[in-house]
Structures are given as C-alpha cells and as structure tokens.
C-alpha cells in the first residue's frame, strides 16, 4: 500500500511536467471546436448532413469553445509574453464563440450559412496560429 502511494506520488509529480501547457491546450480545443462547426455547417449546406447531426456538432463545439474561453481567461500568465498571448487568445476565442452562436442559428437560416462557414474558417485559422505560438512559449 505504501509502495503504491509512493508510485502514485512520483507519477503525479512527473505528470505536472509532461502534460501540455494549459494555454496551448485550451487554444487547441477552441481551434478544434471551430473547425468542427465550420465543417458541420458546410456539410449541412451541401445536403450531406441532417440538421440534427449538424446541430449537435455545433452545440458540442459551443460547449468546448466556451470551456476553453474560461480556461484561457483564468490562466495565470507568468510573464509579459504569456500575458500578451493570453489577451490575444481571449479575444480570438470570444470572437469564435460569437460566431459559433450565430452558426447555431444558421442551422435554420440557409441564406447565412455560406458566409458563416467562411467566418468560422477564418476564426479557426487565427486560433490555430495562436495555438502554435502558445506551443513555442
């Protein structure tokens, strides 16, 4: 039993060193969510997806992105570079979440879908860039 506790402690300490840094992970999650919603909306527009599947995908994306937004906002930045990046990420994710909410409505408004897909794709690329930057911190 004592041996197991020691192993768990060592493993736990090691875990703190290895897991992906939180800024990068949160930005990556937001990237992922936005990209997924863009594809779902495009698929719906092309007639490849049913509205239930597209809607659920976008709904999941909203949840993931909102969670990422909270995580990024709560991140304790250690230096000015991190602080700067954090502010950029907060702004980018906030924009993405806004567009994701529009996308949710877009499921029922065919006229707006194409422009929303473009916006979400742009959001995704912006977030992806930030993720890469966060990874090189």
């Amino acid at each position, binding site marked *: 039993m004592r041996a197991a506790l020691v192993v768990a402690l060592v493993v736990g300490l090691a875990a703190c060193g*290895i897991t992906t840094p939180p800024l990068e*992970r949160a930005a990556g999650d937001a990237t*992922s969510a936005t990209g*997924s919603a863009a594809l779902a909306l495009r698929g719906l527009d092309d007639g490849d997806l*049913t509205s239930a*599947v597209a809607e659920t995908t976008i709904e999941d994306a909203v949840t993931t992105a909102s969670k990422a937004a909270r995580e990024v906002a709560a991140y304790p930045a250690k230096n000015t570079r991190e602080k700067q990046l954090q502010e950029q990420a907060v702004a980018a994710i906030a924009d993405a979440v806004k567009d994701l909410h529009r996308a949710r409505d877009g499921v029922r408004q065919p006229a707006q879908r194409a422009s929303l897909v473009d916006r979400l794709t742009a959001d995704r690329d912006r977030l992806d860039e930030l993720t890469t930057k966060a990874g090189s911190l």
Partner: protein
Amino acid sequence: MKKYLAVALGILTAIGGFVDIGDLVTNAVVGARFGLSLAWVVVVGVIGIVLYAYMAGKVVALSGRATFEIIRERLGARAALMNLGASFLMTLLTLTAEIGGIALTLQLLTGIVPLAWIVVATLAVWLVIWLVKFTWMENAAGLLGLTLIVFVVSFFVLGPDWGDTVDQITQQYPHPGEHPLTYWFYVVALFGAAMTPYEVFFFSSGAVEERWGRQDLMLARLNVGIGFPLGGLLSLGIAGSAFLVWSPEKVDVSSLSQVVLPVGEALGTIGLALVLIGVLAATMGAALETALSCGYTLAQYAGWPWGKWHRPAKAPQFHVTIIVCLLIACGVLATGVDPIMVTEFSVVFSAVALPLTYAPILVVANDPEYVGEETNGPVLNALALVYLVIIVVAAVAAIPLMVLTGLGS
C-alpha cells in the same frame, strides 16, 4: 439461413468489444491525430482476443463451464474476488457509458437532448433482457451493427492518398505536436479495448446460452475467426475516415457527432442514416453485452443459476443484479456526466482484471479434465503465452500512462 446466423454471437461480441461507444470515439480520436499509424495495435489486439475467445469457447463446448466459473475454480475465492471486483466495476462503467451512448445516438437521430433519452434507453435494455430470447437479441443487434461497414466504405469514397496511407501504417514516428507517451497511451488503450474481459465473459456465457457442445468446436472457430477481425476492420474504418476528414481541418475528435460526420461527408444523408442505425445497434448491443456480463460474472462466481434461457423467476439473483446495475448506470448518467469520459476511467481496472481473466483460461484450455484430448497445441500455447506477457505489460503500464498523459490530452 440458420447456418449464417450461427456466427451472430461472435459478431455481437466483437461489435460490443471493438465499436462500443468508448471505442467509436477512441478510434476516431486516434485516427484524427495519428492517422492509421496505430493500425498495428488493432491487428495485435484482434489476434489476442481471437486466441483467448477461442480457448474460452472451446472450454464451453467441451465442458459446459463458462469463464468466470473457471476463474473461481483456478484462482480460488480470494484472487477470484479481486478479479470479480475489478471486472465487475469495469463492466458496470462500460454499461453506464453505453446507455449514455444510446442516448447520444438518439439525439443525433432526433435532435432531442440526450438527458431525456437515458430512461428510455435503460428501459429498452432491460426489456430486451427480460423478454427477448437470446438468439433473437444477438441476431438483431449483430446484423444491424453490420451497417457500420459504411465507415470502411467512406474511407474508400473519401479517397485516401495511398502512398501516405502506407507511410502511416509502416512508419511510426514522428508525429509532430504529439508526445511519444501520448502515442503509447493510445497503444495501450486500443489494446486494452480489444481485450476487454467482458468480451470473453459474454462470449463464453453466450455459448452456454446457445448450448454449445463438442460438435460446435468448428462454430467456435468460425465465430472468433469472423467476428473479431470484422470488429477490427470496422475500427480501422472509423480511424481512417476520421483522419481523412478531420486531420486537414485541424480538429481533435471529442464527441460522437464528430465520429459519424465523416460518413455524411462521404456518402450523404443516406450514409449518415445507415451509420446512425449501426451506432445505435452497436451501443445497444454493447449495453446488452455488458449488462448481461454483470449478471453472468456475479452469478458464476457465487454459483447462482443464470442465463436468459431460463424464465427470470428461475434465476432471480441474476436478474436482480442486472436490474440494480441498470439503475446505477441510469443514476450516474442522470448527474449529467459525459458518458465517454466514463469509459476512459474503466482502464484503471484493467490492470487487475486482464491478467486474472486470461491466465485461468489458458490453464484450463490445457486441462484434459475439461477439454479431454482437445488440449491446446504447442503453437497455440506459445502464442497465448506471448500474449499473456503483452497483457501483463499493457495492464501494468495502463495507469501510469493514463496519469502521465492526462488521459491522452
């Protein structure tokens, strides 16, 4: 027709083991992140489960003894109780996830939130166990689950770059942006999923339900030889099509909707309808498999009457166990927990459950008291021993890897 349906037990077992809700998502996650570079794990896993499920099936056909009876006899009360605890919790967690999976699938079919479906799903699973004959159950779930083959079709329709695909399968490193430990976490997760103990519990008990005898040895071979490779093929199809659709979009898969979406991209709404039917059948099948396995393991450990061939009143503890498990699963899900997260925690128990399940099967498959002259040949024994080592290594590595990689994130 009956001859063709005779492999339904193997197909249902394999679908429950390879493409249940946890595996559906894990395969897609792995596909989106690593392409087909973990395909080898699926192949290794398929061979392992084929070997051991065959031995378990052989023991049933020749002695009528289901796997957990053997575990109790060979390990004694204490070690068997440890295995029972681990296996039972693992199966119960999987059952919980599957009922959540049914609800998520119904959401994808209807657009109605999953929480509303949980009670419906639980009730449906119980009614099938309570009222429907075993063969009907396995044929319906097994055959409908076959529609999941659209994942494989999608992979071809989406048009992979074959040169790149071959590179993925043959070259393992490097995966830019992925820690090697994450790669190994998924290696262990996929292997563990292929060898989940409830597969042999269900397969062997199902063989008892179907009254296998000596003449069914060939049937045992057919079942494992067709069922499990098919399950493996389906999981490769899921990984492959997830890679082709999600990887270019820089998307990490995390939900069931993202698992089925590639099929829509490839085959349109008809494909989507087929895949949703398949996923519903697979999660329902896995829910039945795990719910029954909860009853099978406990009843076989304690020496209670069990089995769906009895009327419920003849096996009361067996049915009460299943009802209680279903209620627990339903209660856990009602808290709003993510069903897919639930399956990931069941990995914790594999460290105890895997070695303590497969070692007794290997021992008894060599015991003339059980199998007469049909003891394992030297080749089968050598292979099975190699796998026993792999199983122990994977089982021991599972927990540290899980912690180190933060569940592969």
